[in-house]
């Protein structure tokens, strides 16, 4: 009898897998070429998403996470650590909650390593099937975001390396600025189609291209 039932939910063999936006991508048409597009949209599908919960006051917890992922654990609202091994990232979500994103298929291994390293009161939950990352790049992205979220996306308030969870259209999203003109949205699977179409519609006046 174990305390937790942890298992790898990815199949051993290759099968047909469908990302949250596979249905939507098949049914929209946009610019044929990226030239002249104010916004280039790309789904970063099949990444590993883990929700991490724990106490900041537990220094062993903080150290354990940082050692496992090779990234600093952001402790302030809007904090986002990117880089390290496996192009991983840690996103501050709430005072005791973070979103870890790792390369495709690495989520179970990351979870296992975290569990090996951490003790006491914490939780790791795999949500990889439940969300996806939408990358928006181009000179008009900030203007598009202004149509979508009441959060202030001006560089003065939203420098590169920041991420926030905010209202987005009539749903919500984690909005991350990963480079000057490159942003990411982390969206829930069931809302992905709505948000994707919304972003395409809001981007239409600037010219929008969907990249693979």
């Amino acid at each position, binding site marked *: 009898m174990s305390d937790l039932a942890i298992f790898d939910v990815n199949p*051993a063999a290759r099968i047909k897998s469908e990302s949250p936006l596979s249905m939507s991508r098949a049914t929209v048409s946009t610019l044929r070429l990226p030239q002249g597009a104010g916004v280039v949209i790309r789904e970063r599908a099949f990444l590993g998403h883990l929700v991490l919960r724990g106490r900041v006051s537990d220094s062993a917890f903080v150290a354990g996470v940082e050692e496992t992922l090779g990234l600093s654990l952001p402790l302030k609202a809007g904090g986002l650590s990117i880089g390290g091994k496996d192009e991983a990232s840690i996103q501050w979500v709430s005072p005791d909650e973070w979103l870890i994103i790792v390369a495709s298929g690495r989520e179970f291994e990351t979870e296992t390593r975290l569990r090996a390293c951490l003790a006491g009161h914490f939780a790791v939950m795999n949500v990889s099937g439940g969300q996806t990352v939408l990358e928006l790049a181009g000179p008009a992205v900030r203007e598009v975001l202004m149509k979508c979220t009441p959060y202030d996306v001006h560089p003065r308030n939203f420098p590169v390396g920041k991420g926030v969870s905010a209202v987005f259209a009539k749903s919500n999203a984690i909005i991350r600025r990963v480079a000057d003109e490159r942003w990411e949205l982390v969206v829930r699977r069931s809302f992905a189609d709505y948000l994707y179409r919304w972003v395409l519609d809001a981007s239409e006046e600037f010219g929008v291209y969907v990249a693979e």
Partner: protein
Amino acid sequence: MSQRNRLDHGGRVDRSRPLRFTFNGVAYQGYAGDTLASALLANGIDVVNRSFKYSRPRGIVAAGAEEPNAIFQLGASEAAQVPNVRATQQALYDGLVATSTNGWPNVERDLMGVVGELGGRFMPPGFYYKTFMAPAAMWPKYEKVIRKAAGLGRSPKERDPDIYDHVNRHCDVLVVGAGPAGLAAALAAGRSGARVILCDEQEEMGGSLLDSREQIDGRPAPEWGAAVLAELAAMPEVLTLSRTTANGCHDHNFVTLHERRTEHLADTAPTFGGRRQVRARLHRVRAARVVLATGTHERPLVYAHNDVPGNMVAGAISTYIRRYAVAPGRRLVLSTTNDHAYRAALDWHGAGREVVAIVDARDNPNGDLVSEARALGIRVITGAAVIETRGKKRVTAALVAPIDPVGFRVRGPVEEISCDTVASSGGYSPVVHLAAHTGARPEWRDDILGFVPGKVRGMIPAGGVNGRMALAEALADGVEAGTRALSEAGFKPGGVMLPQVPRVREGRAVALYQVPHVKPAMRAPKQFVDQQNDVTAAGIELATREGFESIEHVKRYTGMGFGTDQGKLGNINAMAIAARCLKQTIPDTGTTVFRPNYTPITFGAIAGRHCREFFDPRRYTALHAWHVEHGAKFEEVGQWMRPWYYPRGNETMDEAVQRECRAVREGVGILDASTLGKIEIQGKDAREFLGRLYTNPWAKLTVGKCRYGLMCKDDGMVMDDGVTACLGENHFHMTTTTGGAAAVLDWLELWHQTEWPELEVYFNSVTDHWAAMAINGPNARKLLAELTDIDLANERFGFMDWCAGTVAGVPARVFRISFTGELSYEINVQANHAMHVWEALFEKGGKYGLTPYGTETMHVLRAEKGFIIVGQDTDGSVTPEDLGMQWCVGYKKPFSWIGRRALSRPDTKRGDRKQLVGLKPRDPRLVLQEGAQIVLERQIRIPMPMVGHVTSSYFSPTLGHGFALALVKGGSQRIGQTVYLPMPDGKVHEAEVVSPVFYDSKGDRQNV
């Protein structure tokens, strides 16, 4: 083309770009830079509308947002119809089509006008209330006729082809109004590098500078304005928005700006580069500081027949001449209480037209402008006012008399002066609306004879709105406000030199609102206060005599200040008149409440992109594409799109549902159950936490087992239910209803964070992570066995167990739980892999008759088993005991749980509470209506005691008859009794009260 009132030179119109337009079906021409109003005046159109109540001919009165009469229907096609456009704020474009909103058959020959003329005397305020009071039931019929006779514009009957959107903006300083004060403030703020938004409702920024006669820093005022705008445009953090009205000011400096992006180009938005432009945009601005530089509205004087076309406010004359090169008449009489209005006469004179007389209410006017007029040889009549004008469709003469403004009487003989235009000015009312939107009451200032904005945190009024109307003062006030806003927003002010303006000496104005007539107000010819609503001074006086003392009541009784202009021109006059009649001061009378929006805004801008496919988010499961491909009809559950049923060929819904029901009972069916809420719970106190949340005990649920749980609110009423599985000692998988998922997670967090933070437990939604497929029916095991490595033998994988393994090669958790009463497996896999598993099931499922079924079939099957749906069979007033679910309540649990105390109240223990029962209609073919009321007697009497209602009702192909679930008072004691259901058509249905479990009451089928 004749533009007989167009001046040969001057103005800001482009004479090289003539534009054609039609008004009431007649073609005219104007120039680029015209408003529709200036183009109509240029063409000498006197009558532009008929009035609302009396159908009197009306002309253009003003040049801005305050215009009451020139309210038109625009649009060349049905889809492009826009009602109630103010011609004074509508830029002329080529091909513009406008019609008057009132007047039948047309404004020139209006039939209602005869009625108005005859009936005017008999239509006092409250006329409609008084006349059409009784019988009340007839009001809707009266209303139809009244509205048609006295309506404003109409909405389009076709779909709007345009798109609209919202933009969220944040800034340090928002400057509302780009007149002298606003420009000075924006410049002061912008030079520091702060984020500044400057908005102005007009086509061109500059406000009063655009028709100013004065010099700033040694050059004409408009040139100074243009230079400032050029400098602002070059600042990267400054955004200037023209054609943008700040329509509403809300708490915390949240201001909505309505930007009209293409309405100056065409009636529907043009396309640029193949992309349709956004017609209107709502900017949702959150500003650290707001500089309110909205200026003033000039008050006309209230004299008899002041609504005859040719009567205008004085400032509008200057605007039309200096900005649009239109002199809207030949011979002018100006009636004024102040120096500033003299500009109208000077500009009129400068345009080469005749100023017949300036009539000044003051005895000894002596400012610089007065001297200038006298020096030009203009006749200035002092201590007098225009008390009445003559003419029907155009002014022909003004009656001028010496008056005593304080004693409110005419004090000498009346002189008739021939003229075609009467300009009047009774002073200037600060445009306080935005400040007042936040609830701040405007404050009266005797020195400026006007209300200034009440104090609003974070808002700084500047210029005219702040009572500083002279150009030099407005500029200085603007610089000061911009600087203050900046430092309050945390910036270091940059240097702004105060612009230099030669001082103009102005004499003090006199307080005059309603002009006395030789006859008392009640007997004098109509003196209009609010032209849009046909409210007269006599009407206001009558209202006060009838006992209406609050200005809000006077407003509603007379109708003053309603309509599209919201009393911008007339309200302060109306308050002054009410004050005079009530023998009190204006500040004691106060203003009516100003509410958003400042000017009407199109519904498109309010909706933005949240319309049509984006009206509400639609949530999809990972299997949605399959459902679409297989012809599913969908039902919205919360925001989820769930398959409702899957018709084959020409099947009706009933036929499809019956087929699906039989498939589940006889073979095997499959349901996409992914929408059910799923919450993963980890932590050593998870079990304890569950025990406190659910009504039933969780202490002994072992790993590998599932249990049904009921959740109550603290009032003891059922709020949600679902099955929770014990994955590990410290690990649980909770399911909730589809619609309740978010609320349940919030509920868990609420109790954990506020009441039991010491419990070591974490929750997270995994609804979207897992796709869930429920296979149900006698063949479910055989089907699953073909695809899984899990041992499905009943002894090892029994009812209410769960197992992990693979299904179709995909790691899965399989729960043996059942919402249909059949042998059931709910397969949960990571959502990305769900389609593979679903399709594999269908590959193997053919020989077992695998049938996809939707929510409707699920409802029938669960109801046959008496399983409730929270929110359908419960409504927030139903306890577990009311549902007959005592078995699911653990009164003996050591720690109290949510709802326990409420469930021990006498009221929740009553035996005659509404309880869940089954109903079997006497007529087996009958399906009772959900929501139908239940009574105990066949014979109807009044009052008829009602004892409950039907909550769920279906036809069961398995049972061969209709059946229902119902909540009935004392229902558990009524099993076997007959109840009646009277229907609206007079029929009374009869049904037997039975157990809510209609099928397999022992549960054998799910346990096989």
